[in-house]
């Protein structure tokens, strides 16, 4: 990478940070349309089985959606009969340890840690705690950033996990 373009300015840092907080809020509040508006057409949304050398085209993932499959996922969530998210889980995600790399002139790679508290209200009335890290790839698009990649690495992804029907 060219050193002269690799530095992230404070303004850029704030912009990426604002985007990530906004994205987390839409996901936590199951605001599907607003969340979907943050996506680029080449979006990949991926939950591999945790850390490790998992390859998306070789190793089975917990979730691996391209843009069209993600549209199906959101359509399904909006039908009202996606039982695993009816009623929707109240959730709050804490995000920290933001680090940003530049991919190109107008693209960023952001890394965060997260802890997500999910009230599983569909069958158990119990709280699930999810923890891990996320990678976002973001692109300058018209006036704001858009997301074209989101990878969620759960610390327990390769172990038995409960249903994850919400947008994490």
């Amino acid at each position, binding site marked *: 990478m060219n050193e002269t373009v690799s530095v992230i300015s404070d303004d850029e840092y704030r912009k990426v940070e604002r985007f990530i907080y906004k994205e987390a809020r839409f996901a936590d509040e199951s605001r599907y349309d607003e969340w979907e508006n943050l996506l680029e057409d080449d979006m990949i949304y991926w939950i591999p089985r945790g850390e490790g050398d998992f390859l998306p085209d070789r190793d089975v993932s917990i979730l691996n959606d391209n843009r069209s499959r993600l549209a199906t996922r959101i359509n*399904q969530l909006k039908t009202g009969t996606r039982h695993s998210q009816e009623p929707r889980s109240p959730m709050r995600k804490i995000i920290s340890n933001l680090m940003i790399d530049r991919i190109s002139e107008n693209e960023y790679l952001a890394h965060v840690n997260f802890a997500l508290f999910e009230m599983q209200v569909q069958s158990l009335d119990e709280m699930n705690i999810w923890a891990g890290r996320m990678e976002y790839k973001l692109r300058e698009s018209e006036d704001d950033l858009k997301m074209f990649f989101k990878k969620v690495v759960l610390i327990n992804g390769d172990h038995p996990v409960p249903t994850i029907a919400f947008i994490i």
Partner: protein
Amino acid sequence: MNYTTNDISAISNPAADISGLIKDNGIHSSLYTDPNIFALEMDKIFQECWVFVGHLSEVPKRGDYIRRHIGCEPVLMFRTGDATATVLTNRCTHRGNLLCQEEKGRRRAITCQYHGWVFNLDGDLVDRPFSGGYCDKGGELDLRKAKVAIYRGFVFATFAKNPVSLEDHLGNGRHALDRASNLSPEGELDLFGGWTKHIFNSNWKMLVENNTDGYHVNHVHDSFARGIQVQYKYENVLKSEEDKLEAFVRDMGDGHAEIEYGQTYSKPLFWFGVESDRFPDYVSSMEAAYGKDEANDILTKGPPHTYIFPNLFIAEVSMVVIQPISAGKSINWNTPLYLKGAPDAVNRRMLRQGEAALGPSAFLLADDAVIGDRQWRALHGSPGWLDLSRGESRETVAADGTITSHYSDETPNRGFWRHYRTLFS
């Protein structure tokens, strides 16, 4: 009868009591919720029957092992030769330490990390540090070894002293293992995709029964039908009119059951959501391996949707293992049905379709899981009899003894419980 204590001895005559909980067309809910019955199942079913442990392709080289469970018993499956494997209890015979904690790996021998006892891959005790302190006890301190039998790479094991042959256990279910393996031009599965492990807060038998229940599909999976553009493989089963469904259910005997979709596909690879010209290399390698007619038949009929008693389910594009944890908790394991010798693009499609259907975030299984959770909670708080009579009067018995009926009929459930009852009598 008192089914609330955790003491198994509270059931004075368990076999008789369990038989009383199963009628021809209904069962009592305590079969799902009672921890005493769960404990008896671990003994009578998971210790005494042939249980699926893993596939040889998961341990390709000598010394490769995977950690699995037979019921609740932790085991290790080791590759020991070209077509052989051992299944050993993952517990040191000295002081009971778990011998291997890693999910998979490779060993030349198994050394316990507590006191350094060493076992070979056949489970024989071969060395003990400071051996001067011991009098020889012969083979008494070898690891607990399961009997192993392998069919087309599927490794089954049992702790029964005098088990029936694997062939007898599989019965008609053997055809499903053939049907899956024959989708490969080399006649073998190659399960290198790893497994997702999805927690169900319900009884393992609920997962079993749901797998061959056609009746729930229009209701539990309504959101999927409406969320995607329905096409190809889902076209037939997501129809809401009873008389238009062509798929049917089959009780194969011995507890095995399936949903037969074969005749709903009019062309080769329709089950895969494509036509033959999408994967010409695959089709030609299949024709070279099986001849044109048989290849056409295999590729039209597609993969099985078949449950093999007690813990294996071939879910068309995926393979599923059902692991019981407790009366109210189970793990659904899922790996793509990778075909040895098939083009990467075919296996990649297998992977993507499997991820859509199965796993913690899947379009289908996420909803099955929550319905199972609800069912278990309702039954736990409100025990009683459950009805399994659907389709009783419209079944057809074939010459081979298998029973077929309408896609939505509870024939597979009745077959499961009929076999289950024999194990406790």
